[in-house]
């Protein structure tokens, strides 16, 4: 049988290491995704309904549950083992989709040309409040 526990603060059994539930819930990632930008597809994810390929190095992550507003934080990273220029970067927004309550965009670029480029690994984590 499912059980529900209502509590404001968690501590260890010694009464130390206190953490409020607001930090537990607010500090947890609400969405994370690991996708292959070369073959395009999600390897693994949490609370992601789908990912969209918008073009070279341009993707959208669509959420299963909507965020409360578009003021959330997105952390992104990308890499590719097969390319001779490993020093590539990822940005939290793309040309085609920024932050919305139901999705966010990612752009991956070659730093030397600043041209969109698909990557083997494209990762994102979303922190903020759910609706």
């Amino acid at each position: 049988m499912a059980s529900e526990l209502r509590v404001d603060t968690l501590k260890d059994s010694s009464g130390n290491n206190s953490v409020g539930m607001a930090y537990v819930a607010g500090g947890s990632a609400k969405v994370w995704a690991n996708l292959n930008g070369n073959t395009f597809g999600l390897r693994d994810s949490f609370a992601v309904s789908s990912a969209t390929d918008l073009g070279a190095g341009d993707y959208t992550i669509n959420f299963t549950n909507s965020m409360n507003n578009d003021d959330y934080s997105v952390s992104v990273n990308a890499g590719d083992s097969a390319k001779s220029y490993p020093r590539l970067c990822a940005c939290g927004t793309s040309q085609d989709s920024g932050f919305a309550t139901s999705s966010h965009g990612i752009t991956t670029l070659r730093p030397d040309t600043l041209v969109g480029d698909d990557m083997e690994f494209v990762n994102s984590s979303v922190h903020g409040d759910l609706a």
Partner: protein
Amino acid sequence: MASILKVDDLRGNTSAGDITITSEGGAATQSLQHGLNKCWLNFESDITTPAIRDSLNVSSLDDIGTGRYRVNYSNNFNAAKEYAGGGMTVRGGNSKGAFVALDSQGNINFATNGTSISVTRSDNTLADQDIVSMLLTGDLA
């Protein structure tokens, strides 16, 4: 009235690895475990031996070259290449900006027990930096 729960180990009732939390707005429920950050790290690398300032779930840090490092985890991830490495940032002691990537000289080492990362300045050169940080989410083994 505020309530405090003193406990050392939280486990789901139906499934040990799955505790549900209600969203801030009350419209949805999600898994607590899946959303927790599983690893974070802050280290200094512009010294002879890179030094970890503080971390979670990091057993050690290897210096594998200028601007290149391997982060070793205390607890393994569930599957290689299937966790997310977001939130990597860097602050340098020079005027050039820099960023952190998961790859290292074209060799992804995105394993269950660790990953290699590289720090590149805006002039496209690998570089050791004053403050390097990273954040990983995903499922642990």
